[in-house]
């Protein structure tokens, strides 16, 4: 299961999806929105995505993980639109026969998401807003 959604992500649905009689471990990762970044108080976050390509990239990450580790199933769901502080912006759940593979695949997936999946986060803080950009290593200042 690899998708983007405008609604809150249901963790249990993802856990149920990866549950497998051959699995001895299920590893969930929940990325949540923080109320501060680089010394600023963050009021709100808004995610924008190139939906069709984002879902293709998530699926590609899943395929890549399956080649590298012996995992049973993987689910990744990323939130789009406004996300309240403390809510889940992304959830990754992986099942595997032995826990090492699920931990490794989960770590790989979140690092890849941050590099290649066309989703952008706008941070609204006291006195301004910014599109966060990680590829350049520099936050981008939104133009008014």
């Amino acid at each position: 299961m690899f998708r983007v959604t405008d609604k809150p992500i249901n963790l249990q649905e993802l856990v149920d999806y990866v549950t497998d009689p051959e699995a001895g471990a299920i590893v969930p990762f929940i990325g949540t929105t923080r109320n501060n970044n680089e010394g600023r108080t963050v009021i709100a976050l808004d995610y924008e995505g190139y939906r069709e390509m984002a879902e293709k990239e998530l699926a590609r990450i899943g395929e890549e993980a399956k080649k590298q580790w012996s995992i049973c199933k993987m689910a990744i769901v990323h939130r789009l639109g406004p996300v309240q502080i403390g809510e889940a912006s992304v959830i990754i759940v992986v099942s595997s026969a032995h826990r090492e593979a699920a931990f490794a695949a989960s770590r790989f997936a979140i690092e890849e998401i941050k590099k290649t999946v066309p989703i952008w986060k706008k941070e609204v803080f006291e006195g301004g807003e910014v599109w966060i950009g990680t590829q350049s290593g520099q936050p981008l200042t939104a133009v008014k």
Partner: protein
Amino acid sequence: MTVRVKFFAILRERAGASEISKELPQGSTVGDLWRELQKDYPKLAVPGIRLLYAVNQNYVAPDYCLREQDEVVFIPPVSGG
């Protein structure tokens, strides 16, 4: 030929549009398209950022040759997660 261009995030704000069509000479590359669009939308270029190019939802190199009705997206630094 005509290609379709979608803008997202900072580029959508700078272009003031989400989706446009653009006429290009046959044989144009995705890099050529980016140079043309900067003439149409002078505020589009963001100094110091590295853009990636996607055609029909796959990453491509700047010298990728465009075809009629391709869907092109310029990908500013991503920040999901």
